[in-house]
């Protein structure tokens, strides 16, 4: 699965040893966060719906390692990994999942609406495919202000069937906007296999409809994701226009926590979780090439666990918003009078 692409240099090898470790750290932080969130949700500490990014960490980690703080991303309903990798704080994320006051959205958003504009994370989105055109708008800002910022739009295989995909890619293409459309093809849209709902077998082939380049990579190989996106993001910054990158991955957990998962076999899931886990794969690779020591790996997991637990404590202790804060934040203060 995934197409090896010769034209991309092995940028990963140029990374410092620290950089190589950072990729792993990001993945481990996401995994640890998500694993704990699942528990907390099942323990009814977190209300609402939760969509976990477990098994897909290599994508967020590999892409975001090539971004700057003032680059933008748009995310999805499955957005925790994107937010963490872009630099959002675990504490404020966890507080938001709890609906607490110092959450990123002051409790108004919850899991499906996490955003951290201060690091360019323009928001998770409860509307599948809602992020495409927002990313295009961010790309317009870079274009019109002549900066070299880029906008990255994450979206699922299911989202690739929304009309917004089409309009966004066409618009980005005609203006050569610096937008990288990252398809996280985890093979399912809720209960619906991509092989059923998406008329084309490689989503990157959709690039042909917009005269832009499309690539497919193994999204569970963080080195490949990093390498390819490294080159592509450089291309974006040089004004060559939008690109579509499909990252093949697999959603190891249910669509949401609690999904009965009748649409696939346990065996399929088990195989994927065992054979294709992006963290396992990267860890083996790093060890094989002696890029990291086993103790360092243990330390990363330990630190991540501590960070998550600190976030949980933070969220648990954080107060709920006052009820009447519910009518704040609708309008900019210059017109609060209009509420």
């Amino acid at each position: 699965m995934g197409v090896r692409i010769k034209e991309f240099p092995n940028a990963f090898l140029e990374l410092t040893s620290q950089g190589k470790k950072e990729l792993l750290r990001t993945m481990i932080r996401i995994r640890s966060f998500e694993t704990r969130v699942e528990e907390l949700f099942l323990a009814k500490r977190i209300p609402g719906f939760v969509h976990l990014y477990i098994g897909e960490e290599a994508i967020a980690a590999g892409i975001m390692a090539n971004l700057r703080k003032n680059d933008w991303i748009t995310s999805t309903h499955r957005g925790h990994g994107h937010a963490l990798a872009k630099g959002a704080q675990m504490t404020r994320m966890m507080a938001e999942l709890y609906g607490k006051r110092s959450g990123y959205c002051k409790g108004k958003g919850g899991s499906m609406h996490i955003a951290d504009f201060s690091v360019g994370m323009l928001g998770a989105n409860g509307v599948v495919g809602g992020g495409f055109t927002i990313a295009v708008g961010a790309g317009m800002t870079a274009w019109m202000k002549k900066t070299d910022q880029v906008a990255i739009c994450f979206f699922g295989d299911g989202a690739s069937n929304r009309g917004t995909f089409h309009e966004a890619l066409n618009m980005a293409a005609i203006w050569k906007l610096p937008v990288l459309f990252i398809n996280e093809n985890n093979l399912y849209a809720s209960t619906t296999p991509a092989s059923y709902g998406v008329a084309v077998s490689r989503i990157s082939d959709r690039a042909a409809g917009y005269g832009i380049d499309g690539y497919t990579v193994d999204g569970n190989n963080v080195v490949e994701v990093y390498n390819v996106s490294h080159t592509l993001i450089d291309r974006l910054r040089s004004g060559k226009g939008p690109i579509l990158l499909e990252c093949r991955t697999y959603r190891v957990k249910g669509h949401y926590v609690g999904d009965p998962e009748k649409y696939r076999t346990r065996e399929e899931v088990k195989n994927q979780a065992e054979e294709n886990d992006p963290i396992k794969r990267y860890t083996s690779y790093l060890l094989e090439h002696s890029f990291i020591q086993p103790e360092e790996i243990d330390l990363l997991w330990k630190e991540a666990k501590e960070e998550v637990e600190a976030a949980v404590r933070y969220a648990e202790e954080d107060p709920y918003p006052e009820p009447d804060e519910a009518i704040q934040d609708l309008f900019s203060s210059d017109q609060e009078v209009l509420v």
Partner: protein
Amino acid sequence: MSIISFSEATLQAMIEEMERDSTVFVMGEDIARQGGIFGQFKGLPDRFPGRVLDTPISETAIIGSALGAALTGLRPVADMHFADFISVAYDELVNQIAKNRYMFGGQADIPLVVRAPDGIVPGAAAQHSQSVEGWLMNIPGLILVSPSSPATAKGLLKSAIRSNNPVIFFEHKLLYPQKGEVPDKEYLTPLGKAEVRRAGKDVTIATYSIMVQKALEAAQTLSREGIEVEIIDLLTIKPFDLETIVTSVRKTHRCIVAHEGVVHGGAGAEIAAQIQQEAFFHLDAPILRVGTKNVPIPFSPPLLEYVAPKVADIEKAVKQVLYREEN
């Protein structure tokens, strides 16, 4: 009578209508492989092979193709997953489906149903909690329906499927698991007719969907204080049964309109505007509206509690129109 859930009641309606008419079919996201997120399609695909279709995430195409299918000889039922996503197919609903028959001089009927699970579920937040009938009140050509119980859900869904006009069928997500009595014999609940759920002489409450229950709850408390409200379950929101409301207001002289959707520009605005016009001289107090405060639905429990309409809000409004406010 049998006791079944709202979800099962809609399933029975689907089964009966699909058995009766082979041109009825249903399509939507994630309805076939897992029976719908609220179990409302459970077992249906096995029973009607090829007539329960999982679709891609393409609401525009779902609703637009339902129109094309309806124009050419089928009777589609299109599931919207969440009513919130009607937004995505809004052009197909308002500029195509609602106008098609009129614009083309009545050439074709448009027998289609859009099922739209709506309403607040705690924690579902701004984009998965809306009651969106207010988005469609201004659209001539659409019929909006919203049952309040298993019995009305079944009877109205059957009527909606048999209707030759486009019906948007709102079903409150929290109603799905609720159980209630449903007649064993086949029946239809007529579109456009309200039902009086509780007789009372003091205040009329015009309401629908899950708010009927909240009104009934409020009625109990109020009754203990000697206030008897009359509760009208509209069932059809557009066109709503003004006559039944006005008949009641002529008796009570006071009226409240309660719905879960946002108050400003909600269905209650039209309902109130018509009542004051028709029953002006019978009203002893302004018509008050109860609904969600004028913000999107927030995630956090205390915030949600603050904005969503509650039983206490209905009680308060009733007392206000009776000039029996405590404060």
